[in-house]
């Protein structure tokens, strides 16, 4: 082949490639243009025939089966929180409107409106929140304005829903009557506000109480199944697909005794309801031998006295504060256990109620000197009258050189730490021990009578429970078991936090606590139906900077007003303690004082008397002495 013809072939090949590439380019250009046009068309005016959509719709649908949340039970099995769906009812007011308009059927429209009027009357009679005219006007206004989601009523139960579904128009169903029903799982609390702060809640990100801490047990596990539609338009399970059954949540059995909770709630309300100066009040009842909490009441008002008492916040766990004289028992227990106080009748000089070293004078001692003419006082009497001087003197005298010894005791009583508890959020105590920033030369003495150490009421109740249980300090707990269909799958046993003192020491301190009730600051409990041993405490609360408003005194504002708290904590029956009880009331900023020996002691007395009447432990047995004849009526067959 000549060179010329080779060149000619090459040119022809190139021309062919050019032509093919040209046409390919054209094809891609046209395709691109088509795609662009299709995009514009779909975005702007494309309409998909529903019949076509149905052909593409899968024949099976995934149906999620929600688990039923577990119940929270009282110790006797009565439910404190259960789950059940509540229903919201809406109405599509525009239902069949277009249909009537297209057919020009004014009579049908009028008939629909007549039914709507009947429906309005029924709704008004059922819910009694609006008149029939108000309901009717809302429906007709919705129909005229094209409202497809008019709220009729919310949070109704199943019985009410069934009645509403039988009303005129609604009985025709969703497609003809326009009724829209939306179910949502809700928690029902049969006892309303009782123990609500302990029970708690889980709502979106808000999580409180047992509901939050035991959510992993309560919530269960969702399941799913695939469903397909049958020839008669029913949805049934698709047997060719997987099924995962929902697992309902486990039940939580608490240690709470509903009757005790009710009694405590009522007694506290009775004492503080009429007293506008009281901001809040709490009650804790704990079983001495186990640490099981039988009642925990947290009643508080809002920022103003006008608001009603309600379980707003868990003060028992979170109100870290100086507890005042109830902490004198901590000092006494340490002194007796260490052998510094060998007998409660041991005396110390009165010194006009004055301890050197920057302490305030105790005016109670001056009264005591004046009344008795004595210049010495027994430890027992100092405890009965709750003398700050006596306990400052004892602390300075016996622990002045080794303050750490006393603080070691405080830590061994678990008053310096937030121990593990069934509800999270137990406040961490603040202890101004040697070496910390809060330590000063008077801290030892003030700690001896309850200032300079801040703990929660639960810490105090747990400590007193240790004395009631003869030195074995039990860990407080609220949940005794996790159950599934009535079968226990997890049992929580009582556990010991620490052995805080010997039995003899506990008995000695119990005697001192009993004398407080008999001859001291808690004589309001003297005639209680069960013997009570305990201690009162009145403490001034450290004000926030806003409340202090520039005052240099941490306990008073510039107008001399203060916030204080009164506490009674003890146990009963004193001879063989079964329950430990703590009642505290907290005041608003005011000029009034509230003492532990008044409102709290009165509440304790009422609670103790009612527990005595209800607790089977105190029931008496009547021994049968004769035979009761078999009762027969004249007509009865033998």
């Amino acid at each position, binding site marked *: 082949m000549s060179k010329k013809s080779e060149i000619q072939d090459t040119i022809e090949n190139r021309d062919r490639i050019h032509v093919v590439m040209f046409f390919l380019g054209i094809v891609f250009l046209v395709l691109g243009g088509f795609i662009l046009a299709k995009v514009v068309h779909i975005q702007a005016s494309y309409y998909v025939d529903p019949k076509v959509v149905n052909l593409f719709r899968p024949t099976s649908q995934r149906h999620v089966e929600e688990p039923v949340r577990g119940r929270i039970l009282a110790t006797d099995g*009565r439910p404190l929180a259960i789950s059940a769906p509540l229903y919201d009812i809406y109405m599509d007011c525009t239902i069949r409107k277009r249909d009537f308009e297209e057919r020009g059927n004014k009579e049908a429209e009028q008939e629909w409106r007549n039914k709507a009027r009947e429906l309005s009357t029924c709704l008004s009679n059922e819910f009694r929140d609006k008149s029939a005219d108000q309901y009717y006007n809302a429906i007709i206004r919705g129909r005229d304005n094209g409202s497809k989601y008019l709220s009729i009523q919310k949070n109704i139960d199943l019985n009410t829903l069934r009645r509403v579904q039988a009303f005129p128009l609604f009985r025709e169903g969703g497609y003809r009557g326009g009724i829209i029903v939306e179910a949502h799982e809700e928690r029902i609390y*049969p006892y309303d506000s009782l123990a609500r702060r302990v029970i708690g809640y889980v709502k979106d990100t808000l999580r409180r109480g047992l509901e939050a801490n035991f959510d992993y047990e309560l919530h269960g596990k969702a399941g799913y199944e695939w469903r397909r539609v049958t020839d008669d338009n029913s949805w049934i399970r698709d047997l060719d697909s997987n099924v995962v059954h929902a697992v309902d949540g486990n039940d939580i059995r608490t240690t709470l005794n509903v009757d005790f909770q009710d009694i405590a709630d009522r007694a506290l309300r009775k004492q503080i309801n009429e007293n506008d100066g009281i901001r809040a009040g709490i009650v804790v009842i704990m079983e001495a031998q186990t640490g099981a909490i039988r009642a925990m009441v947290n009643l508080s008002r809002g920022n103003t006295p006008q608001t009603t008492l309600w379980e707003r916040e868990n003060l028992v766990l979170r109100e870290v504060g100086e507890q005042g004289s109830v902490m004198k028992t901590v000092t006494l227990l340490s002194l007796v256990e260490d052998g510094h106080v060998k007998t409660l009748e041991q005396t110390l000089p009165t010194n006009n109620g004055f301890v050197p070293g920057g302490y305030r004078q105790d005016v109670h001692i001056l009264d005591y000197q004046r009344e008795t003419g004595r210049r010495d006082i027994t430890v027992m009497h100092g405890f009965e009258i709750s003398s700050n001087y006596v306990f400052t003197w004892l602390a300075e005298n016996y622990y002045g050189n080794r303050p750490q010894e006393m603080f070691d005791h405080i830590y061994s009583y678990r008053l310096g730490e937030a121990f593990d508890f069934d509800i999270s959020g137990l406040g961490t105590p603040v202890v101004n021990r040697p070496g910390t920033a809060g330590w000063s030369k008077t801290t030892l003495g003030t700690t001896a009578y309850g200032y300079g150490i801040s703990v929660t009421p639960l810490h105090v109740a747990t400590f007193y429970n240790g004395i009631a249980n003869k030195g074995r300090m039990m860990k407080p707990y609220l949940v005794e078991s996790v159950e599934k269909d009535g079968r226990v799958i997890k049992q929580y046993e009582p556990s010991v936090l620490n052995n805080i003192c010997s039995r003899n020491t506990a008995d000695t301190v119990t005697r001192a606590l009993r004398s407080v009730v008999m001859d001291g600051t808690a004589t309001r409990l003297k005639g209680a139906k069960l013997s009570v041993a305990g201690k009162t405490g009145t403490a001034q609360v450290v004000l926030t900077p806003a409340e202090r408003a520039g005052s240099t005194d941490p306990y008073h504002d510039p107008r001399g007003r203060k916030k204080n708290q009164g506490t009674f904590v003890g146990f009963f029956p004193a001879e063989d303690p079964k329950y430990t009880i703590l009642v505290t009331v907290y005041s608003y900023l005011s000029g009034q004082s509230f003492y532990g020996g008044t409102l709290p002691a009165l509440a304790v007395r009422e609670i103790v008397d009612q527990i005595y009447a209800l607790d089977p432990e105190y029931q008496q047995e009547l021994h*049968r002495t004769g035979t009761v004849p078999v009762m027969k009526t004249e007509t009865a067959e033998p």
Partner: protein
Amino acid sequence: MSAHTVWTAIRNSLRAIRNGEFLLRVRADKLYMHILYLFLLMWLTIMLSLQVDKTLTVAGANKAAIEELKIHHAEKEAALVKLRSASGMEERLEKMGSKATLPKEPATRIKRR
């Protein structure tokens, strides 16, 4: 197999169908029982499938009824428990004008022998 043979077979088959002789030409009479059996199986399959659907529909309705009963039970339980609270009882007694109150003394039990 050539295209001609295939075409001839199709043409003959179509003619046989037109003349109503197709089944005889393929000697289907020999397979008559089998065909009947096949139809029986198909009928049974369809019937059973419909019965299963029906049963599942009933089961679904029963499940819904049970769920509804459970909800009723929970609501009733809550209502009954509410009635049992001591303070509620005392309030109702007071409203009714009764002089009965909660016990002030513990109950006395008769000991069984």
